[in-house]
């Protein structure tokens, strides 16, 4: 019997199986941000264990509320900053160099195929796009990760989702993942790894694969994962070129982690996306999904383009293409947050930020901000947002606010119209 990529990663990282169904894995990376790490740091200190297992494997960023909005968030940043300093953690990204964790860390080359990664953040599953096993954990697991470089997991089953067909113009990775969540429901993949396969995934670039894997947790999955291939190697090449002769050799090294053809899956599903049209959410659950065409006319107060789901350069390019030559509705507040400084600079050099500003958008610094309703565009009660983020829970972007999740193209088109609307890029029906 062959093995899945998740099984191969588990096997190569196994430290202990203390009670049969639990695997304690060695970690290649522990990622940290300022919302969930300070409590872990303080608890470790209180236990007299203010140590780290390996400062080079721990990567730290202040991203959720940046710049700090009040004394409390300033204190969270301070705790993290001082801790990184006294423990010799060199990869610490503070304001000016910081960006949304799940965009910044891959961009820095910290993620590799076959890696095990944890972070105190549920969207850590994003890094599965590189063929890594990456899972969100709570503070206690994070503490143990920081202290000992291990984490315990139940052996995950794998749910294989084959994405086939031909995508219509104006339909994007975001629409595909919304479709998958609709079909699986919010707990359809609980305790499972979703392996994204098929021609459509093979043809995606890394930005698109990250969008796909980012929302795996919205279906309950531990991790979303794509098999490493030449696209993965191309993305990583600048970071790994000293380790391998050529790209072929790197590919061969990573290929060992690819799932075997006769691997065993808990469940398999094939989704043909040929007829897929742009989608959006309507209620307070990410599996409440409808075609944008059925939500036409829904008035919005704010459009947010950014986050670890859709704040990458390609996302901004697509939104700018829709916005170019248009002014957004005068009752809509448009906010765009390029997810990292690199993306910000590239978008500036390409003239994308000018298009956003000419159309009436506010361009903010890289941060999570409005995505979790802590800063940078919080909604008032009764307000409605069209957003490229990943969660539409009640109160997510501000108490009493409603969030509709969608692709950057749909969000940009909705900003122009002042209501939920399909983009001019989509020529369907």
């Amino acid at each position, binding site marked *: 019997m062959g093995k899945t990529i998740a099984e191969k990663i588990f096997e190569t990282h196994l430290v202990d199986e203390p009670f049969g169904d639990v695997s*304690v894995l060695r970690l290649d990376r522990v990622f940290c941000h300022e919302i969930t790490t300070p*409590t872990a740091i303080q608890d470790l200190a209180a236990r007299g264990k203010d140590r780290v297992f390996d400062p080079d494997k721990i990567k730290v960023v202040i991203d959720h509320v940046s710049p700090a909005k009040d004394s409390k968030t300033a204190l969270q940043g301070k705790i993290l900053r001082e801790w990184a300093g006294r423990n010799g953690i060199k990869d610490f990204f503070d304001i000016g160099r910081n960006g949304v964790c799940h965009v910044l860390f891959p961009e820095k080359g910290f993620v590799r195929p076959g890696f095990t990664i944890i972070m105190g953040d549920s969207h850590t599953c994003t890094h599965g796009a590189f063929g890594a096993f990456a899972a969100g954990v709570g*503070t206690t697991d994070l503490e143990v990760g920081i202290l000992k470089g291990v984490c315990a997991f139940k052996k995950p089953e794998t749910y294989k989702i084959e994405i086939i067909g031909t995508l219509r113009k104006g339909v994007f990775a975001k629409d595909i993942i919304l479709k998958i969540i609709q079909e699986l429901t919010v707990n359809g993949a609980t305790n499972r790894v979703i392996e994204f396969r098929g021609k459509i995934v093979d043809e995606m670039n890394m930005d698109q694969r990250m969008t796909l894997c980012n929302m795996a947790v919205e279906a309950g999955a531990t991790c979303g994962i794509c098999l490493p291939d030449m696209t993965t190697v191309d993305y990583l090449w600048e970071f790994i070129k000293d380790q391998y002769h050529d790209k072929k050799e790197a590919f061969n090294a990573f290929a060992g982690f690819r799932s075997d053809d006769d691997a065993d899956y808990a469940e398999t599903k094939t989704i043909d996306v040929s007829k897929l049209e742009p989608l959006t959410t309507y209620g307070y659950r990410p599996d409440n999904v409808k075609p944008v065409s059925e939500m036409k006319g829904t008035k919005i107060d704010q459009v947010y383009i950014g986050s670890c789901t859709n704040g990458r350069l390609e996302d901004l390019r697509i939104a700018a293409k829709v916005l170019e030559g248009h002014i957004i509705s005068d009752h809509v507040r448009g906010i765009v947050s390029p997810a990292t400084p690199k993306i910000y600079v590239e978008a500036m050099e390409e003239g994308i930020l000018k298009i956003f500003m000419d159309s009436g958008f506010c361009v903010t610094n890289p941060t999570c901000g409005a995505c979790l309703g802590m800063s940078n565009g919080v909604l008032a009660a009764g307000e409605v947002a069209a957003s490229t983020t990943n969660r539409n*829970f009640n109160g997510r972007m501000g108490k009493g606010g409603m969030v509709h999740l969608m692709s950057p193209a749909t969000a940009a088109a909705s900003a122009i119209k002042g209501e939920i609307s399909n983009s001019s890029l989509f020529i369907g029906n």
Partner: protein
Amino acid sequence: MKEFKGNVLFLDRSDINTDEIIPARYLTEIEKIALKPHLLEDLKIHGFDPKKDIEANSMIVTRANFGCGSSREHAPWALEVNGIQVVIAESFARIFRQNMFNCGMPAIELPENEINEIFNIFSNDKTHISLDIEKGQMTLQSEHQTRTTDFSISEFDKALIQTGGWVEYADQHY
């Protein structure tokens, strides 16, 4: 083995997420106790008033996929500082479930039909539950009814409850 018993708060809905358990706007708190007044503040269930209904209860009985969404361990902490030590549900989101045991608090799963029965029989009455972790058995009691139900809990989860959580366990073993 530690004893768990107390009165029950019934939350009759699936997919209660961690933003509903403790909203993100309180994640800037560094002290657990500051979360106390905000538990379930954003949860909208007919007849549920967080200001009145949380006090005096130390168990939650609810439906499927409890604790989905964000990984915040602030969710079990907000329960803990309100004296709620146990959640019994049809199923849990993975991270929330692990966070509970990592804090030494049981998150017990029961089959759907058993949860339905419990809601049918007990949810309108004041109900008390006592949990025997060693035996894997719980007893529910109201003025009119008593019911005993078996549950399973893994050896790992038992060990976490016994040693007082994962940090101490891992530091001793790895």
